[in-house]
């Protein structure tokens, strides 16, 4: 089982390092990356300052495994990686990193979007939006 969940924000260094790790895989001709960043949504007179993520990890890992398997059947991919934060991620920081690699360009765009949609729709991850008045509300994907 590949590790998806990371504690806290996903750092630019982690992302750069992931790219570097693929330089030895010479069948790859195209990478595509999606990065989701925590946005300072306005909630009435207040603003979101961070999102605190939790998950039902056993079920999430089962779902993520199914999604990975389905992606390899659906698209011509060399490899794919999904990382998602748990715990607090402040606005401006990265909370999801999806990285898709293939011999050629066309498939990676489609695969990336499909994967991000699958994670949002089917993986039990919950987000508590912390507001600047220390109040909170629960995030719902639209």
């Amino acid at each position: 089982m590949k590790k998806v969940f990371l504690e806290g924000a996903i750092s630019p260094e982690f992302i750069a390092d992931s790219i570097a790790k693929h330089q030895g895989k010479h069948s790859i001709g195209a990478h595509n990356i999606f990065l989701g960043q925590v946005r300072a949504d306005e909630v009435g007179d207040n603003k979101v300052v961070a999102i605190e993520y939790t998950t039902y990890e056993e079920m999430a890992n089962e779902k993520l495994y199914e999604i990975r398997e389905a992606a390899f059947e659906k698209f011509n991919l060399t490899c794919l990686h999904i990382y998602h934060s748990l715990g607090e991620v402040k606005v401006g920081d990265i909370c999801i990193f999806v990285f898709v690699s293939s011999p050629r360009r066309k498939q990676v765009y489609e695969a990336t979007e499909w994967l991000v949609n699958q994670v949002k729709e089917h993986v039990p991850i919950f987000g508590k939006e912390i507001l600047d008045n220390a109040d909170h509300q629960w995030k719902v994907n639209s």
Partner: protein
Amino acid sequence: MITVNYFGNIAEAAQSSSETLDHDSMSLVDLLELLDSKYSIAQFPFQVAVNRKIVSKQQALNISDSDEVALLPPFAGG
């Protein structure tokens, strides 16, 4: 004993992320009624997972000792 896991705003309402109920076996419908009487969960949108698979709340399903039940508010990944 039946174990129920709570997440998001339902964990807040239950003031706990997990609970074991003193029942060996009961229907899913009865279980959800019992939890609603304790925590008014019907006010929240949620899905139910039994053994990590989503099931319909109305499904005629018997929950027994070894089953893992979870109440899942709307997903918010990404």
